[in-house]
């Protein structure tokens, strides 16, 4: 039986195909259309999923959309009514879109599916709708390695729910608590993202990256005026400080008055004030999530926690939950954002709607290391390289890793394209840019040569799993790069005068023996690589370790700023040619840039 899950029309549209409860394929539309966070109906992602299974749409038994449009529309109506007449401008913008388009979602989905396959029998097709948080909860629990777990989903807003708690056991998920709109930790964080001059629903991770440069001097102010946090982790926001219910901005003038400054303009200089605000909202988010998870652990006495939704992409919060909440085991859906909703909706149909038995997990997750996207034939890669006039070397499979390790150790930046593409926002060694983490200048080199991104954002390490505890104090795997952990003090480098530095001057200090992946607070966003689950990437890092005694490498996504991660050999070749990347590896083909 085939089930097709779809998420679309908000951000990060995606498709996922299940066959008898097994993930055949999953992909985000942005990878095909090259529009970052593309929200359009995932025509290309669906076509890819079907081609991976070798089936047509008529062979799909159930098609499921990841949220319920009527419930969302009901929320919009009630919200406008509650805030009328002040929400009129926002209403004028939103309603025509809804009444022209979004309310007719079912019809639109059918129309789009007919574009994919004109022979689709729409009368026979089973089209279902799962709720937003049900989809996310399903994506967090069903593919997890746990037979029983507390499931926490927290994001901006679904239909009505902003935070939900459920208990997953076997094939059942039972929601036990929820916090409703407009009280939302996701929207709270997004409001600060907006205030700091970054893009809402997109740049929240930049706030997280900026936080360690500042001091959380406004945390008390946040809890005194904006957030009323209870001991059970539930909270209410004082809506006088926000404008997202009724206006076209996230925060209100009262918010600006509280912090004593207007919101930062997107290209304006980042000042110590902005760093302190970032540090404060990050500390507040950590405090809220820790209070909530500690209370959940105490109440339900279950030692496993599953998470999904946008807030679960806050790796710093995740690292603290793992160490301080009381939960011994934590699993986070790698496509935690809305893209993962497609996967969760499909799983919700398989287990909840169809009541299929969930077999014993035996402690393994079902995400196949999140390598669920397209891969390419050797002949197609060869043709692409030849067409681009790239002189390539076809390596013996046994030589590939040692050769790449040699290049890495010489300080070269490598575009690495191998096997199936990742599903979710992280590059995990299939569409990655790799570099040597021991070099202090590597972040600047990566930024100047390829990424052109903000200098304050840290790069992340991929480490051999067996070395993760020694280097990062991580006793559990972090295969999806969703946990931040402190670098073991043993590897720190004492630096005189660091305490005198502040702001971006902190970047000048060499902090550890792996400075390129050491953030200014001595932490790193770690990806652990397991020999069995991710053999190719493991062998590569192992080859680097054998050569240098360093068990980790820099792993960042294979793209330039504001572009989606590369999807095809041609896009990889384009990125290689248009940047100063030194080496390109596509499967067993190696291309060196001519001097």
């Amino acid at each position, binding site marked *: 039986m085939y089930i097709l899950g779809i998420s679309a029309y908000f951000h990060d549209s995606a498709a996922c195909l299940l066959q008898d409860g097994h993930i055949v394929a999953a992909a985000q539309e942005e990878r095909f259309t090259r529009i970052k966070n593309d929200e359009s109906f995932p025509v290309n992602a669906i076509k890819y999923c079907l081609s991976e299974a070798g089936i047509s749409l008529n062979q799909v038994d159930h098609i499921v959309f990841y949220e319920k449009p*009527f419930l969302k*529309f*009901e929320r919009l*109506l*009630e919200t*406008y*009514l509650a805030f009328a007449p002040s929400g*009129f401008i926002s*209403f*004028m913008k939103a*309603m*025509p879109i*809804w*009444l*022209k388009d979004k*309310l*007719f979602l*079912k*019809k639109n989905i059918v129309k789009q599916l007919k574009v994919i396959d004109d022979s689709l029998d729409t009368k026979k097709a089973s089209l279902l709708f799962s709720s937003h948080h049900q989809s996310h909860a399903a994506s967090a629990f069903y593919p997890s390695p746990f037979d029983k777990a507390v499931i926490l989903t927290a994001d901006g807003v679904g239909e009505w729910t902003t935070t939900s708690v459920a208990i997953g056991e076997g094939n059942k998920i039972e929601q036990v608590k929820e916090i409703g709109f407009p009280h939302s930790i996701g929207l709270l964080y997004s409001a600060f993202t907006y205030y700091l001059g970054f893009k809402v629903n997109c740049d929240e991770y930049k706030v997280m990256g900026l936080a360690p440069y500042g001091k959380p001097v406004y945390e008390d102010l946040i809890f005194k005026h904006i957030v009323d946090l209870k001991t059970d982790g539930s909270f209410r926001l004082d809506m006088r400080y926000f404008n997202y219910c009724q206006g076209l901005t996230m925060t209100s003038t009262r918010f600006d008055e509280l912090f004593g400054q207007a919101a930062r303009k997107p290209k304006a200089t980042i000042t110590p004030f902005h760093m302190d605000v970032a540090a404060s909202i990050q500390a507040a988010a950590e405090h809220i999530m820790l209070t909530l998870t500690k209370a959940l652990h105490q109440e339900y006495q279950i030692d496993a926690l599953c998470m999904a939704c946008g807030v679960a992409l806050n790796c710093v919060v995740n690292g603290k939950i793992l160490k301080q909440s009381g939960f011994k085991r934590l699993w986070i859906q790698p496509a935690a954002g809305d893209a993962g909703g497609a996967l969760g909706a499909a799983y919700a149909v398989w287990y909840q709607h169809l009541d299929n038995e969930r077999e014993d997990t035996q402690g393994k997750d079902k995400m196949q290391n999140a390598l669920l996207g397209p891969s390419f034939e050797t002949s197609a890669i060869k043709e692409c390289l030849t067409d681009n006039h790239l002189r390539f070397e076809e390596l013996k499979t046994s030589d590939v890793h040692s050769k790449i390790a040699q290049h890495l150790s010489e300080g070269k930046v490598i575009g690495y394209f191998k096997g199936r593409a990742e599903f979710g926002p992280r590059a995990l060694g299939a569409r990655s840019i790799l570099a040597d983490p021991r070099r202090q200048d590597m972040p600047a080199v990566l930024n100047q040569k390829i990424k052109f991104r903000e200098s304050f954002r840290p790069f992340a390490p991929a480490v051999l799993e067996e070395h993760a505890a020694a280097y990062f104090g991580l006793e559990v795997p972090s295969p999806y790069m969703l946990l931040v952990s402190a670098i073991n003090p043993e590897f720190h480098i004492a630096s005189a005068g660091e305490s005198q530095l502040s702001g971006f001057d902190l970047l000048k200090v060499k902090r550890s023996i792996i400075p390129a992946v050491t953030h200014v607070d001595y932490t790193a966003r770690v990806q652990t690589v397991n020999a069995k689950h991710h053999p190719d990437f493991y062998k590569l890092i192992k080859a680097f370790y054998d050569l240098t005694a360093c068990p980790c490498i820099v792993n960042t996504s294979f793209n330039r700023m504001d572009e989606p991660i590369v999807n095809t050999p041609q896009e990889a070749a384009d990125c290689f040619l248009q940047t100063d990347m030194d080496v390109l590896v596509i499967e067993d083909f190696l291309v060196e840039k001519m001097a």
Partner: protein
Amino acid sequence: MDVIAEFFMFLKSRKRLWLWPLFILLFLLSLLLVLAQGSALAPFIYSLF
């Protein structure tokens, strides 16, 4: 029209039929907004708001 009927049934099942008049009002208003985009109806809307 199917969608409007479906939405009516949805509100009924959710015990939120009190939203129905608002929905109709908004629907008509939005229809007006959609139709008025670049049409001769625009002055009528401006005089309303």
